[in-house]
């Protein structure tokens, strides 16, 4: 297991994430794992008790997890949002923009590549789930 990259100050949740179905059945779970076919909106009524949402990317080309992440952030979720699975360094910047703040890749990242990925883009064209100011807003500041 590769190390988890975490861009949060709080303590990580120390128990395993459960499936969405189990989570909805169990009133005490605080960590859940979303698969690509799950509807992230099912979690919205329960955001208060959630501390960790893992979004699984079984294959890097399946982009549903990006929408799951934004759906949760737009609904006000502030806990840890962790991308797990086939998470590749070339997609980290996109994931960050969609609200992910932790990454648990199947294969260990090269530290330098991670740094380059996060530092590369000086500007962004869109408003998304992060705090970055889109180019259009800078143009009309």
């Amino acid at each position: 297991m590769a190390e988890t990259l975490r861009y949060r100050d709080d303590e990580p949740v120390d128990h395993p994430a459960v499936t969405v179905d189990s989570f909805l059945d169990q009133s005490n779970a605080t960590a859940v794992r979303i698969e690509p076919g799950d509807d992230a909106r099912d979690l919205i009524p329960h955001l208060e008790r959630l501390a960790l949402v893992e979004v699984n990317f079984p294959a890097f080309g399946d982009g549903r997890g990006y929408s799951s992440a934004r759906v949760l952030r737009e609904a006000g979720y502030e806990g840890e949002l962790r991308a797990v699975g086939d998470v590749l360094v070339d997609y980290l910047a996109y994931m960050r923009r969609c609200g992910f703040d932790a990454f648990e890749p199947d294969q260990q990242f090269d530290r330098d590549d991670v740094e380059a990925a996060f530092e590369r883009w000086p500007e962004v064209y869109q408003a998304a789930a992060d705090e970055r100011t889109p180019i259009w807003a800078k143009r009309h500041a």
Partner: protein
Amino acid sequence: MYKYDQYDQAMVDTRVEEFRDQTRRRLEGKLTEAQFTPLRLKNGLYLQLHAYMLRVAIPYGTLDSRQMHALADIADTYDRGYGHFTTRQNIQYNWIKLEEAPDLLADLAKVEMHAIQTSGNCIRNISSDHFAGAAADELVDPRPYAELLRQWSSFHPEFNALPRKFKIAVIASETDRAAMRLHDIGINIVKNEAGELGAAFYVGGGMGRTPMIAPCINPFVPLDQLVTYAEACLRVYNRYGRRDNKYKARIKILVHELGAEEYTRQVEEEFAHLLGQGVEPPLAELERIRTYFEDPAFQDASNDTIDRSDPDFALWVDRNTVPHKREGYVSAVISLKPVGGIPGDATARQMHVMAELAKSYSFDELRVMHTQNIVLPHVRKATLYTLWQTLEAEGLGSPNLDMIEDIIACPGLDYCSLANARSIPVAQKIAERFASTGKTDALGQLKLKISGCINACGHHHAGHIGILGVDRKGVENYQLLLGGSEAEDVSLAKITGPGFDENGIVDAVETVTDVYTRERQDGERFLDTYRRIGMDPFKEALYG
């Protein structure tokens, strides 16, 4: 024409460096081919039949002379002295080396060009009306809306791994010159009863193996909600588009399976939510972009006349120039369809010539048509003869716009690894046949489109006459289709019956045009006659 500011330039420059880094990691073995493929595709780099192929974006088909010169230089420096203009208004080079691609991209970036998102499962380069800003019949110039969406869709974080590719076209005219309803999203800029501009959204069209005409899902999205609405359309697709089967992954299948009504309901629900999320640029941004598309300094040319004493020139004027919104001007179409040539190919020298002509005669602007020709959008009538003489001398003066010789053809099995049959030789033989029999003229407008496989890059579903190349036990075979149209009278062509071999398909095309000349009533195009009399008389003539 749009000009980059420091932000646009920074984005393109950054992508060049990112791609340089990705290429390095691939060559060093840090990336597998499976990991690298989507990264290079999202920068337009394919591994094709003979070599790497690079597709360069020409946003909404508009470019200036400096850019066209640069495309020519790239053909000479990195390729084999030519390029191929495509049915999505882009250009592609067939002989690129991976190790040189980053330098090529850096050269492109110097002239505000790139290959970003010209392939891959993302929002592709946005196409538009090739006569935008010039057409006598347009409501407004559609390109500012296309540029707004270009910026929104570039490096969109949520939509970087869609179920499949996603193509958007924007027009602003009743006349559809961009095959708008055969796109994943077609946008028509319209006016409502209050006189305000808005966007009609057509979603779920496309060609490929399951051709569909996009239904209108919203007849009027206000301009200050355009990006938000597009975002809603894409989010529903990203979440629910099929990923279990590559051939059912386009949005047209989702819209079809859900039904347009249910898809629309989901989009509207998402849209209502997204309106509160602040994803929409202010209208001031659209205004800023619009200033780049203001009219050039047209002169008073109302007294311009055309000296028709040279009959070859007069023929070219009649066939290859179209009305302009300003008196005394026309849009002139440079045909890349010389009889016997390769549709859409231009040599570096021809690109340089076209660039110079644009600079001298068309306010420094050129357009790429989806029919694989080039437009000089704003030409004074008084300068047409000089312009035409140069075109003639350079093999660019074929007078055949929208005629049977003006064939759309994908690269086919001569270049493409997906193809099942060659397209180009069929196009060449048909053009040669009609040029030699002299029948071209009498046929009038007749749009013939050839694809070398079911993916339909050659738009065969939308041809008045379409040809689809298939592989029949290792032998090239060609199916004939009739009755398609990509225009405002959009329709999908139907297969006539069993296919033909290479020579047989040329004969078959001649046979159906003979049926047309026999059956047509006054003023009817081939398509009109087909629609009136139906398939049977054509089948009868073909198969007896």
